[in-house]
């Protein structure tokens, strides 16, 4: 049974479109994350939510908007897609205890290609 799942696995779209990537975890974790892995393989955090509240928001264009309907889901909506948004996006989750760094469990990734 998949712990952290993402849909879709692949997403090919035109510049200027709006798209969403969905993430769900069944681990009972309180914290979820979105990471972007660019062409240089650099895995960088974008957002972190704890119990549906935003706790980390790195320097990310405001075209990216995370939405957490409940603590098991964290979706990523991207408006006006640009070529530079092409990357692999990973969702992750962790127990999220305050002040404690703990293991993060990753989804399989969504490869976004903007044409």
């Amino acid at each position, binding site marked *: 049974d998949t712990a*952290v799942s993402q849909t879709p696995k692949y997403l090919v779209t035109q510049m200027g479109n709006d798209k969403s990537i969905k993430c769900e975890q069944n681990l009972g974790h309180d*914290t979820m*994350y979105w*990471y972007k892995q660019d062409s*240089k*393989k*650099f*895995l*960088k*955090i974008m957002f*972190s939510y*704890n119990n549906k509240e935003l*706790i*980390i928001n790195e320097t990310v264009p405001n075209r990216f908007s995370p939405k957490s309907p409940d603590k098991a889901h964290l979706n990523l909506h991207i408006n006006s897609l640009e070529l530079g948004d092409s990357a692999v996006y*990973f969702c*992750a989750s*962790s127990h*999220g205890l*305050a*002040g*404690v*760094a*703990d*293991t*993060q*469990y*990753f*989804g*399989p*990734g969504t490869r976004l290609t903007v044409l």
Partner: protein
Amino acid sequence: DQQVKQNSPSLSVQEGRISILNCDYTNSMFDYFLWYKKYPAEGPTFLISISSIKDKNEDGRFTVFLNKSAKHLSLHIVPSQPGDSAVYFCAASSTDTGNQFYFGTGTSLTVIP
């Protein structure tokens, strides 16, 4: 500014030998470190961790060493197996930032049968 660096993008090792993957960091506040393993088309999976109160943590064939003065950690895999061929990421965090991890760019390990 990349706070965690893996300067070797790739490494090839014969089956049965030791694989040593290296990671350097710049932030002296980091106190928790993890190694992740990633196969193609899959997400990273947790391998082993170490906190700054230790200098070594061992789990089966995998051992992580931490040298705080040098801001350096390494992952040793002994003996290496073909199934270990994957990309290995190190990640670091500090207690005051809780769950914000900084990742290196990964080292692609190939274990040759």
